[in-house]
């Protein structure tokens, strides 16, 4: 009765293509990218066209998003000098959030960030941007700025410099990637697990159906929880990008 078949991991997030082959294959993950793109363009395109004195509807959403990014992320992590990075951080947050939230949208139910391609690209892009900003700000002195923390005794530099190099130049983009990717994949696997379990138990007998209510309620709970996770992961990814940029361009060392 409980011998339900759990699909292999690759089958949970590895969607067949709707059309196209190879590098141009269009599958559900790509569809989520396109939907996220359309939602950003439509919502913020319409929000920017309306200029009422008292904002309502989409204008309100657009202004809240701008305030959230500028005041809640840029000013908190970088201050005034970080304002020029606000469009990049806003694009990061909105794109990641919209691709995450599709994990609980019925029929689609696939967070694109549960596939490593998008988190890896965004983390590498952020990596290039914050190190580029660091070199632009400090010139070649950025290497010392990045590798030699202030106040460290000279004797410890032999130990600290390699650690900082590994941390900031090698590990950071991957930790940035995996934090988003793994969280969204784990959430998606959790939903699939309870979904499969509910589906397997329901309708296979009275006792099984009663027992099946438990994973069903867990599914409802974790679906609601994924709303929070989708936002939180987008926020954390964007916030960390801001923190990394600030660490690269700051003169506090």
């Amino acid at each position, binding site marked *: 009765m409980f011998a339900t078949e759990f699909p*292999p*991991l*690759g*089958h949970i*997030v*590895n969607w*067949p*293509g*709707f059309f*196209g082959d*190879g*590098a*141009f*294959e*269009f*599958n*559900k*993950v*790509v*569809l989520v*990218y*396109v*939907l*996220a*793109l*359309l939602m*950003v*363009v*439509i919502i*913020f395109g319409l*929000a*920017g*066209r*309306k*200029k009422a*004195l008292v*904002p309502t*509807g989409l*204008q309100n959403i*657009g202004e809240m*998003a*701008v305030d959230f990014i500028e005041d809640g992320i840029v000013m908190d992590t970088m201050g005034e000098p970080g304002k020029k990075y606000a*469009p*990049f951080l*806003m*694009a990061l947050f*909105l*794109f990641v959030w919209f691709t995450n939230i599709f994990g609980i949208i019925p*029929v*689609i139910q696939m967070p*694109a960030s549960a*596939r*490593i*391609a*998008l988190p*890896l*690209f*965004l983390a590498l*892009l952020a990596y290039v941007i914050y190190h580029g900003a660091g070199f632009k700000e400090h010139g070649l002195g950025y290497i010392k700025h990045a590798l030699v923390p202030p106040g460290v005794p000279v004797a410890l530099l032999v130990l600290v410099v390699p650690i900082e190099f590994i941390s900031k130049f090698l590990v950071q983009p991957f930790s940035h990637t995996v934090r988003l990717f793994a969280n969204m*994949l784990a959430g998606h696997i959790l939903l699939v697990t309870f979904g499969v379990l509910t589906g397997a138990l329901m309708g296979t007998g009275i006792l099984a159906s009663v027992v099946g209510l438990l994973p069903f309620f867990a599914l409802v709970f974790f679906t609601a929880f994924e709303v929070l996770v989708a936002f939180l992961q987008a926020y954390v990814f964007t916030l960390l990008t801001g923190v990394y940029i600030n660490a690269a361009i700051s003169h506090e060392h």
Partner: protein
Amino acid sequence: MQRIRLLVVAGAIVLAATVGFSHTAGAEGESNYKDSFTEECAHLLSEGGTLDDCQEAPNPLVPAPHELLYGTLAFLIVFGFLWKMGMPAIKAGMAARSDKIKDDLDAAEAERTEASTILTEYQAQLADARTESARIIEEARQAADEVRSGLQAKAEADINELKTKATADIEAAKLQAVADLRGEVTALAIGAAEQVVGRNLDAETNAALVEAYINQVGANS
């Protein structure tokens, strides 16, 4: 509201298209299989693979090229749109509102200052008017006092004049009365004396005697 309806309709179309895509993809050449995974497994088995190959999932840490390509394009479009159009338009709206609110506040401040100035002027004018009215009242009071004093002085002068005149009249009347009384008393005394002593003295002597007598009486009184 109409835009929201349009968005809902657009969303429904997209969802329908998605379901359609899924069904199309799922139905593609698989009439003999339960689903695409079964079909994939059947292909693997027919190519000499094992059931383990069917369960083997692609490495989730290796990015799919098509997802990388479309993801990159989609993000760059989102970034470009927000950078050049979305954020500037929204921020322009916010800035316009801030400017309008600032202008309204400045205008309100200017009007408040103007009203305050006008109030100060009115208060100053009111104070001037009060001072002026007080001055006028004081002047009127002084004028009235002067008039009253003048009239009083004139009345007192008149009274004094009348009193002096009356005193003089009374004195004259008194002198006249005294003179008349003296004459009559003299005449009476003479008559009386004549009656008493008969005819022993002439009239002038009698008058002189009586006059002397009366003066003596007047001096004693």
